[in-house]
């Protein structure tokens, strides 16, 4: 990458700081909508770091898939399960949180020590970085990673069908005599006679 070293290091620092701050916000903020938008910030900063690491195709894929698909999906999930509920207090919860924080700090210390003392076999500076990453990744996909590439399509198909099956409501046929208008949904929740929520969603008869 032909950007000056100083520019690289400064932008890497800014992107890393932004990413870590946004990740902490995702975990710690109480409003989950803010968390979802900060998650988008994490993904965008990650794409910037990918660009600094000479990976333009993966950066574009990160923006498209994570920000464009997964983040939007999470926002939709938040809208669908948007119920303001005050979580009931669980006794001794602070002990759990504290223990988890200690374990996470310990894990970070362990990983950091491992990263810093391991003699990485860095590639020599004479090794030229791949300029056309799309071509190189495509070559890998259609030669030595052909089987995983095809399996990924099957996996995506299975995930799509599975998500539809899981999220679908049970179909209850209409009672006789009820007019089916064009704007009512042909489905009813399972507890349509009991719950108060369900009564809102019953088609108007």
């Amino acid at each position, binding site marked *: 990458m032909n950007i000056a070293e100083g520019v690289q290091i400064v932008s890497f620092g800014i992107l890393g700081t932004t990413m870590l701050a946004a990740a902490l916000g995702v975990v710690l903020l109480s409003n989950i909508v803010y968390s979802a938008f900060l998650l988008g910030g994490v993904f965008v900063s990650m794409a910037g770091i990918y660009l600094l690491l000479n990976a333009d195709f993966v950066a574009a894929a990160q923006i498209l898939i994570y920000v464009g698909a997964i983040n939007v*999906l999470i926002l939709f999930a938040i809208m669908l399960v948007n119920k303001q509920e005050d*979580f009931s207090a669980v006794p001794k919860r602070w002990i759990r949180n504290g223990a988890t924080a200690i374990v*996470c700090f310990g894990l970070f210390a362990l990983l950091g020590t491992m990263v810093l003392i391991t003699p990485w076999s860095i590639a020599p500076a004479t090794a030229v970085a791949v300029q056309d990453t799309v071509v190189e990744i495509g070559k890998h996909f259609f030669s030595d990673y052909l089987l995983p590439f095809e399996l990924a399509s099957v996996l995506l198909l299975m995930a799509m069908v599975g998500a539809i099956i899981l999220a679908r409501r049970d179909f209850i046929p209409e009672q006789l005599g009820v007019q089916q208008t064009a704007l009512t949904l042909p489905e009813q929740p399972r507890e349509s006679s009991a719950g108060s929520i369900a009564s809102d969603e019953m088609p108007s008869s």
Partner: protein
Amino acid sequence: MHVQLQYCLLIAAALFCTGIYGLITSRNAVRVLMSIELLLNAVNLNLMGFSNFLDPTRIKGQVFTVFVLTVAAAEAAVGLAIILAIYRNRDTVDMEKFNLLKW
């Protein structure tokens, strides 16, 4: 001064620990799913760092990152469908109340 492999790995480790903390302590099921995305992103950053610094001629780390992206997309779709289904059944998204499998 130069962007080094260690910086990438340290940032990825910090992101991973943040994700694990959120995964264990959060009570909203959607936030748990977001924490899983953070974990996957940390792993992706590791793979990209290795791909750039240890293997710059045959960028196999980027290929693995694309596969992880695929799996993450599938996982998010199925996970959110599961959350929707359990929200319809239990009428809550509180992780403390999902104790169907508790012994």
